[in-house]
């Protein structure tokens, strides 16, 4: 239930029950990883060893704001409109 809240999925009680069972079953199967000795093994976060990739700081054309905002659910004066964060 705590996880469902963190994920902001608005799950119904039925969904929470169904997922609880399915996820416990899946996680149980993942216990198998405990068998692997990973002492002194570094993690691989990425398949290609890349350091920071930087580009030159040059002015280049960007997408027109109008096209980007065309998909916005709520728009006002060329900005995304959001609900109040603090009430």
């Amino acid at each position, binding site marked *: 239930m705590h996880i469902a809240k963190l*994920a902001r*999925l*608005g799950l119904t009680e039925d969904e929470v029950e169904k997922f609880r069972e399915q996820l416990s079953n899946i996680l149980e199967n993942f216990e198998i990883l405990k068998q692997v000795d990973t002492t002194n093994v570094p*993690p691989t976060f990425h398949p290609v060893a890349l350091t920071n990739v930087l580009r030159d700081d040059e002015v280049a054309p960007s997408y027109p704001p109008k*096209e980007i905002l065309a998909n916005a659910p709520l728009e006002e004066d060329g900005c995304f409109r959001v*609900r109040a964060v603090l009430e």
Partner: protein
Amino acid sequence: MHHWKRMAASGCGQFWNNSSLTVKARELRVHKHDFTIHEAHQLLKKRELSSVELTKAVLERIHRVENKVHSFITVTEDIALFQARQADERIKAGDISPLTGVPALIKDIICTKGVKTTCASKMLENFVPPYDATVVERLKSAGMVMMGKGNMDEFAMGSSTENSAFFPTRNPWDLERVPGGSSGGSAASVAADEAIYSLGSDTGGSIRQPAGFCSVVGLKPTYGRVSRYGLVAFASSLDQIGPLTKDVTDSALVMNVIAGHDPRDSTSVNQPVPDYTKSLIPDLKGLFIGVPKEYFVKGMESGVEQVIRQAISKLEELGAKVEWEVSLPHTLYALACYYIIAPSEAMANLARYDGVKYGFSAKEAENMWDAMEKTRQYGFGPEVKRRIMLGTYALSAGYYEAYYLKAQKVRTLISREFAEAFKKYDALVTPTSPTVPFKIGERVDAPLEMYLSDVCTLPVNIAGIPGISVPAGFVDGLPVGMQILGKPFSEETLFRVAYTYEQATGWHKRRPKL
């Protein structure tokens, strides 16, 4: 009728100069829609066929079989005819390359400017991208005719295309069965001749597994070989775009266009792109192939195992040296490792769907948090929610080290094991999937069982190496795919092995009856 034409049109490596093709094709009164890229190109180049004619033939085919197969989320008929006319103009001016004027389908997770890109999700049901993905840009410059956008599992999460929020795609070889997934529409459309070729994306097998299930050729390139710019992100360290085609030659032709460095994708690798058609050599002499025994998993169907063992014997017969009992012991942990890493990355990537910038947005809500929860409750389907939950759990305080970090360490061991194997072997050969296509509905409520159908393909994404699936035969009329793996940037070796096998066996010439 279809087989005859394909036999007439093959002939090892002779496709560019086979002047008798047109005559034979006409004599046999073949359908234009079942051409490969290289067959169509030959006729387009000689101006014996126009792109408009070809496009109309493929559209007609779509109209005739789409109500059975359901490969498309969107059919872009007007765009296709417009692009076909443009291609014909170019060809008239003498400007033609192998993909010019040839009809294609694009998986609906790849952004197409001005054309809805839904990811088969209610969340993006009405999303119209303001830009083209790099691969689409490149295909357009090469003269692509876009027939439409392909159905898939929602956000590419699934192995059967049943997780599409709109409708399932059916396997052209047996309409009661799944086409595989997540690129099910991409595979089924090519098998059903609704497109000459297609693009898919592969995070754990999503190109290769459906290619195997539909008896087409599917390549997942090396991580970083093809730009991901404009590919809606699922798991960023695993995702890669690749072609699904009717034969190996076509796969090489599409790779020639889509591969290469892109400054807009910082993970794309700046390495020269070879002419992949040069590796279409029908000869395996001097190649050393390993068969990792762990890929013949418990629960594998005996028919599939038999087909794959026969296929490997064929490689031996064709001149390869084969080591039948290679061991990659960490393969056993790949499934658990993958289903921790992929959902963790997905959960972060899918946090962007908050109902503010684009996509579905719940209007009736009490406050900001309520609006976000309602948006995600309605917008995401069950499998997407399941994976977001799994990822949130694996990354949450107290579990991060036991799950996420542990999985990333095991990932290192899996990659090392592959690297070690490729010091000895030029390629590894395995089944693409442990089973033939399963029945629609059979695994929907058994997520773990569904995950198992990717057991042979997902170690490849974990290590970032390339893999190709080629048609290897049938069990009771249902397709079986053989997977060939190589070290990073060894696509040429994969093409050589796949091409030699294909030309010697001809499984790719069989078409489903629809």
